[in-house]
């Protein structure tokens, strides 16, 4: 009877297409918005993720997320280095500097000052030049967003000149840094250069980056640093999630995306549920006839579930393909960097859309289950 079931489904082209497109639209909207949402949240911790060498971030005890820091004194660096189990600890400056090119075009940029001696945290995905170049004085690395802004239409290459915080410096390399939450250029410099670019103050160190000695668990070392210094110490993963949760709890982002995703879900559920319900209603007398002929109710329910699963698979597949196509087509757009369709989102959307549509289907199935086969004798 699977053949009969599928013929009944596809025979009514308008309703069949309506069902598939409703599910596809809902899937597309949900997966697209969830991907943008996840991408935005990933952006909030991009600088934490990009600094691959450091397992532990040390900061002021009241720090809540990476973009709002209270500067530490240089003494704190030595205190951290003195904690048992620390293999190394280096300073990190994070601030904002005004960057200007020779034509006078300017823009604020995120300025990261890396330890002069080790360059811990320097990006490794280099598009032009060499990351070792910022070991030279008055040399910076800039990400490709910044490079394209200040040198529009020019191929990536080292050697260009920029004014950062009032000091002319040379571009040593163009890096493919992860996009930050605010779509500002990211500039990397030696710690001492970065401090000079923003103007020296009594306390300027944003973070201390540390690595535990072999055999010392990062979480254990965090506890030791906190106990010894009174500062907050967190693993890279912990601090990344703290930053994400800060944005979730303190911005309208999740509410806005939540509304869109909910509307997509409701539209998908309502349209597909309503269309499927109408489809069942219009076929009720045929299902009644099948019951009268001797097809059992479980068999008929199976036929309807098969119809639902088929439109779900096709609709979901189309929707996910549309989302994937969107991100594939926009992957070179710098403003949309970091947004992509994650497998987890595909699974989540599949679970939600299958659940909702199957629920709507079950409501329709009830009508068929209770339909009296004698209805076919009533003209």
């Amino acid at each position: 009877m699977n053949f009969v079931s599928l013929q009944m489904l596809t025979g009514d082209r308008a309703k069949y297409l309506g069902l598939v497109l409703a599910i596809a639209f809902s899937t597309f909207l949900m997966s697209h918005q969830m991907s943008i949402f996840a991408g935005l949240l990933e952006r909030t911790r991009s600088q934490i993720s990009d600094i691959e060498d450091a397992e532990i971030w040390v900061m002021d005890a009241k720090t809540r997320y990476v973009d709002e820091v209270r500067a530490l004194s240089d003494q704190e660096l030595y205190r951290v280095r003195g904690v048992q189990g620390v293999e190394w600890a280096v300073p990190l400056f994070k601030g904002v500097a005004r960057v200007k090119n020779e034509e006078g075009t300017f823009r604020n940029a995120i300025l990261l000052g890396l330890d002069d001696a080790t360059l811990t945290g320097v990006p490794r995905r280099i598009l032009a030049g060499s990351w070792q170049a910022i070991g030279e004085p008055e040399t910076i690395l800039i990400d490709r967003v910044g490079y394209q802004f200040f040198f529009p239409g020019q191929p990536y290459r080292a050697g260009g000149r920029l004014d950062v915080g009032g000091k002319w410096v040379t571009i040593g390399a163009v890096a493919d840094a992860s996009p930050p939450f605010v779509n500002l250029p990211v500039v990397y410099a030696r710690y001492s250069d970065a401090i000079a670019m923003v103007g020296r103050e009594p306390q300027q160190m944003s973070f201390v980056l540390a690595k535990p000695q072999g055999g010392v668990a990062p979480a254990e070392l965090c506890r030791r640093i906190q106990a010894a210094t009174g500062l907050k110490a967190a693993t890279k993963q912990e601090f990344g999630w703290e930053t994400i949760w800060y944005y979730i709890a303190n911005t309208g982002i999740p509410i806005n995306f939540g509304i869109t995703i909910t509307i997509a879900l409701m539209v998908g559920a309502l349209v597909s549920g309503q269309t499927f319900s109408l489809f069942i209603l219009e076929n009720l007398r045929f299902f009644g006839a099948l019951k009268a002929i001797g097809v059992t109710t479980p068999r008929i329910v199976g036929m309807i579930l098969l119809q639902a699963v088929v439109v779900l698979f096709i609709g979901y597949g189309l929707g996910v393909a549309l989302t994937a196509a969107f991100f594939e087509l926009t992957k070179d757009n710098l403003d949309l960097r970091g947004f992509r369709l994650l497998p987890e989102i595909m699974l989540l959307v599949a679970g939600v859309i299958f659940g909702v549509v199957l629920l709507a289907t079950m409501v329709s199935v009830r009508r068929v289950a209770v339909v009296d086969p004698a209805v076919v004798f009533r003209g």
Partner: protein
Amino acid sequence: MGGAGMSQPAVVCERVEKSFGSGEQRLRVLRGIDLTANYGEMTFLLGPSGSGKTTLLSIIAGILRADGGTVRVLDRDLARLRNGEGAKFRLENLGFVFQQFNLIPALTAAENAAVPLLAAGARRKPAVERARALLADLGMGHRADVLPSKLSGGEQQRVAFARALIQDPRLVICDEPTSALDGAAGRHVMELLRNVAVSPQRAVVVVTHDFRILEFADRIAEIDDGVIQKIETRKRESS
């Protein structure tokens, strides 16, 4: 099955009662019906709307249960059928021709006729081939691949006959088979039904209020207000 043959009863209803609703709303639809339908015969249930003939038909088909009395169909007491057995019994032994035909619009004539075979678990290709052969016997061979929406009323009725007969059932139940047809087409359809459906191994029960087709009946049971008013047996020449 024992006893199948001319003048042996395929359907025996004794003192059959059926009511709907309860209390003051209770409506007695059948009030002690006695009826026999024999193998090799066409038994007509004749009566006006609301007389109870459709309810009786549903009970004979095992779709409704009688409140009282006994109903034996093909030597089976329908009251003793357990849940799920009724559907199997209908699928294996009964053929149906519905008033509105109820052909599935998305299936071709042959596929529609093959539905009972498919429901019984047959593979699609041989089932549809068998339906094609049966449709050819009914003069519909050239229309086997046509959708119901492209068929005339008479053609749809023949597809419905094919669907009813494809499992070679021992009892065929027809609900107002000519109500959607004009006089000539109705007569033609009844001739066809008599020729293909009536056999010594099969009984045919027809519900109708169409007096124009009574000439095809072997036995006519007139029902009104839930009671059999008259049973008339007609002698026919062997067709």
